[in-house]
């Protein structure tokens, strides 16, 4: 903004914005903090906001009692696998729609979007039945497939909006300079497409990591990822605040960090390119 802003006004806005930001962030701060307390400190009255004896005991206990690493590994496999598989299927589709559009392209894109609107609960039984039939219930491969399918429309859409932005003139220029189709794809298009693909991977990894309908309903002990692991703390373990916090912190930390990198892509990805 070109307008000069008075310092007093800026101070006021700084105070207000920080106050609101800290209130919104407080539950996360509190969870992380509580994970370093003992159970007695966690329910201390009045609450302990910073000064207490920090301990790592809860993390050790959570890992020991419930084999946390297995759930973490399941989450990594399921979120990573479904994202990679989705990208493999979506890149050719988005590529051809962006560079060789036909009359049907728009309709196909919108139809893909419409499959995303299908309420999961409406097809819960059929999917469970098919999973039992094909031996996919409580397997990682089954979850990879389902999460890939529910996120596929978003992946195609995001890639499409990114590929759309690669200007056609660049291809012409490369051709004028004597580039063949192979060079064109390898040296011109791919480098330009990689940032878009990376953003898409990032956002979809986050979405798959946090998915909590199919992961809760299609897994038991074997393939359960972190979403289901945390749900098992519902009761009575949930009343052990420090351990609940340690388990929660470990489940959300990787995604919080990834999420901060994906702010911009979030808007584009979740509004299907309608807001940029």
């Amino acid at each position, binding site marked *: 903004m070109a307008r000069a802003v008075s310092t007093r006004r800026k101070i006021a806005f*700084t105070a207000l914005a920080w106050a609101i930001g800290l209130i919104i962030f407080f539950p996360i701060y509190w969870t992380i903090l509580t994970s370093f307390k003992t159970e007695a400190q966690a329910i201390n009255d009045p609450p302990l906001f910073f000064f207490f004896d920090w301990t790592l005991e809860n993390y050790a206990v959570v890992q020991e009692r419930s084999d946390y690493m297995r759930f973490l590994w399941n989450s990594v496999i399921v979120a990573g696998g479904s994202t990679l598989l989705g990208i493999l299927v979506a890149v050719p*589709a988005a590529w051809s729609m962006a560079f060789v559009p036909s009359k049907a392209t728009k309709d196909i894109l919108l139809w893909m979007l419409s*499959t995303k609107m299908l309420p999961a609960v409406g097809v819960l*039984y059929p999917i469970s039945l098919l999973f039992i039939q094909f031996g996919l219930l409580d397997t990682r491969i089954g979850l990879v497939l389902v999460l890939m399918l529910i996120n596929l429309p978003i992946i195609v859409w995001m890639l499409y909006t990114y590929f759309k932005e690669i200007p056609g003139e660049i291809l012409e220029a490369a051709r004028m300079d004597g580039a063949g189709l192979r060079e064109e794809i390898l040296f011109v298009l791919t480098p330009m497409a990689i940032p878009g693909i990376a953003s898409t991977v990032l956002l979809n990894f986050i979405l798959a990591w946090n998915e*909590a309908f199919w992961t809760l309903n299609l897994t038991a002990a074997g393939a359960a990822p972190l*979403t289901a692991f945390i749900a098992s703390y519902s009761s009575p373990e*949930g009343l052990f605040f420090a351990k609940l916090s340690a388990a929660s912190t470990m489940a959300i930390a990787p995604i919080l960090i990834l999420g901060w990198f994906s702010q911009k892509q979030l808007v584009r990805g*979740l509004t299907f390119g309608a807001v940029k």
Partner: protein
Amino acid sequence: MMAPAVILLLGWMLVPLTMTLYFSFKRYLPLRGDSLARGLDWVGFENYTRFISSSSFWPSVQTTLVMVGGVLLITVVLGVLLAMLLDQPFWGQGVVRILVIAPFFVMPTVSALVWKNMFMDPVNGILAHLWRFFGAEPISWLSDASLQSIILIVSWQWLPFATLILLTAIQSLDSEQLEAAEMDGAPVLQRFWFIILPHLSRAITIVLLIQTIFLLSIFAEIFVTTGGAFGTRTLTYLIFQRVVDSQNIGLGSAGGVYAIILANIVAIFLMRIVGKNLDR
């Protein structure tokens, strides 16, 4: 090259949908001995009428409307205010933005459990401490104000989304237009009402539609907090209970068809906006 994606999605949509439709016209109670192998009885529209006339249907519709409406109202109103605040120049913009967006990245089961136990617990929760500090009697949030509590949790999760999208939209506003209005002496409220709000209308519509679609199928937040008790049984959760708890597949499938129709009505509007955008 589109074929793999199209075929996969077509299969993902058609196969389960056809099965749901099929079951919705059948009597199918696995616990009473009905099985696919022995064949199911055709009951016509009986499941559809029974689902609607059951005593839990209308309350669940009401719960769904209150929950979705409440969350939409809170997130959009606060989202607009917050986006306008974050658009102002102040120190530490980047950090505050990160703080505000963070809840969106917390998995639903974590946010629900953290709120339920560490905040809303009537004895040891932070809110109970706060209430006692001000000399008030702590509230049993999830049993006495259950629906409001869930609305609070879900709003906390979705406020970042609304804020981020509205902020993106505000930043595309031409600041010269606002300055001109300010020079002409238009008061703050008028500038907001006649310039900012109209500029945001499209973004607000998109936030409303996308959130509605996600909110209609809210599941984990109810599953780990109240399990559908204390008046928090939404349409989605009612269908889930019919299928999973009472194992009445026919009835649940009929409910599923209603949910699909409902979601599609919302989806049509969203698709129109997104479709228009494609033409540009």
